[in-house]
């Protein structure tokens, strides 16, 4: 059909002036225009957009993706492959010989760094650093939780997915878990950079970011509680407390029947599971059942 041909040509912007005149006279002319104009309403950028280049660069530098994959369960093999290849590239200033130390659930360990700084790793945590370059560049990556005793010297950086902590010789605790980022300074001065905010913590001060909400606090303790095999919390959502319980005892917890958003103030020990469960469940009028040696279910008391 002639009209069809005209339409085809118009669609690919291939009309001569005469043809254009003929096209505009078609019955369908208005509808045709309407369809083309209407397409604009579906434009992608109105509903979804990409990060800018600077944000992307911080992704590469802070290794966001692989940190999440350590805890993620989907596409484990493909992403694990990216992580293994990526580790060498993400540390843009590390090319070979990265030392990595990792703890599993219910495991803690102490590491001495080449400058005699000490790192105490809590359960299910990991640090990575460049042994050979340590003296000139004290920077390590942390996932999970660790307590640092930093020997006096040049800048010492701890890089986590949530932010970077810089110190000059001090004692501080960094907790970088999913939805829970906390830095406590026990001695000296610590600078925390996270999400475009920078804050300096002196002795006894802490900063905590739970689910994107920031809280500053004064802390009485002189050492983190987990070093003495205890965990203490103040107004922290129960599901985060349960996460740590799972880590310390290497167990699974079924909490489908309870409200895990409730706020918990209190603590639990790392050395006796029954006692730990009691201190967590009693305040909420809950009870627990052991489904097997490492599976616990939580219920409300009727």
């Amino acid at each position, binding site marked *: 059909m002639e009209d069809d041909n005209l339409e085809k040509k118009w669609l690919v912007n291939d009309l001569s002036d005469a043809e254009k005149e003929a096209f505009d006279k078609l019955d369908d002319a208005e509808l045709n225009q309407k369809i083309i104009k209407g*397409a604009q309403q*579906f434009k992608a950028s109105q509903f*979804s957009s990409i990060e800018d280049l600077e944000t992307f660069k911080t992704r590469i530098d802070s290794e966001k993706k692989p940190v999440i994959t350590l805890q993620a369960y989907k596409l484990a093999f493909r992403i694990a492959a990216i992580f293994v290849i990526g580790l060498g590239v993400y540390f843009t200033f590390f090319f070979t010989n990265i030392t990595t130390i990792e703890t599993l659930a219910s495991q803690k360990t102490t590491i001495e760094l080449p400058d005699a700084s000490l790192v105490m790793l809590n359960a299910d945590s990991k640090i990575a650093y460049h042994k050979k370059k340590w003296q000139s560049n004290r920077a390590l990556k942390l996932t999970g939780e660790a307590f640092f005793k930093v020997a006096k010297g040049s800048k010492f950086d701890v890089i986590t997915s949530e932010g970077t902590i810089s110190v000059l010789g001090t004692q501080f605790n960094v907790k970088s878990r999913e939805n829970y980022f906390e830095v406590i300074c026990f001695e000296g001065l610590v600078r925390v950079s996270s999400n475009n905010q920078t804050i300096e913590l002196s002795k006894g001060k802490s900063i905590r970011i739970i689910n994107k909400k920031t809280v500053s606090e004064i802390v009485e303790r002189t050492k983190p509680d987990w070093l003495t095999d205890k965990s203490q919390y103040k107004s922290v959502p129960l599901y985060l407390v349960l996460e740590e319980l799972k880590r310390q005892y290497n167990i699974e917890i079924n909490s489908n029947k309870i409200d895990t958003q409730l706020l918990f103030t209190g603590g639990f020990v790392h050395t006796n599971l029954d006692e730990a469960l009691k201190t967590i469940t009693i305040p909420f009028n809950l009870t627990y059942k052991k489904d097997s040696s490492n599976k616990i279910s939580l219920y409300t008391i009727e």
Partner: protein
Amino acid sequence: MSDTICDKNTFSKIYNSYAKDLHDYLYYKYGNQLDINDKVQEAFIKLWENCKDILPEKARAFLFRVGKNMMLNEFKHKKVVLKYKEVLPKNYTNETPEFIMEQEQFYQNYQKALGNLSEEQRVAFLLNKVEGKRHKEIAEMLNITTRVVEYRIYSAFKLIKEQVKGFR
């Protein structure tokens, strides 16, 4: 150092040139059911990891192939429903309720029509008509000929027209 992608300047140029295109391509193809930005970032991260082995001129092809594969693994085969922006008539008070309802009907059918197109038709049509991409550009992005691009745009148009025809 020669001009490889591992050079941060070269990489930045590539990001600025193709990130939006890749995003739009995936968005029009699969809709918004997955976080498209996330997949785009993953594709660029993969490019960065392999920067040693990819020539700058091959970067676009790599990104599109990787992006597509990532989506294929997670994409749930539901019908694609692309959102549209409500058209606010210029002189709101002058429009009759019937007219506004007709507009609404028009766009709902348009949306359905887009969902009924094949992925290829939808992508070609929207990249051309919404993003203003030339046929040659689309052909390069999708690794097909310009002939095929024109054909897809044309068949998309015809199918859309069929579905929105009743509602002028």
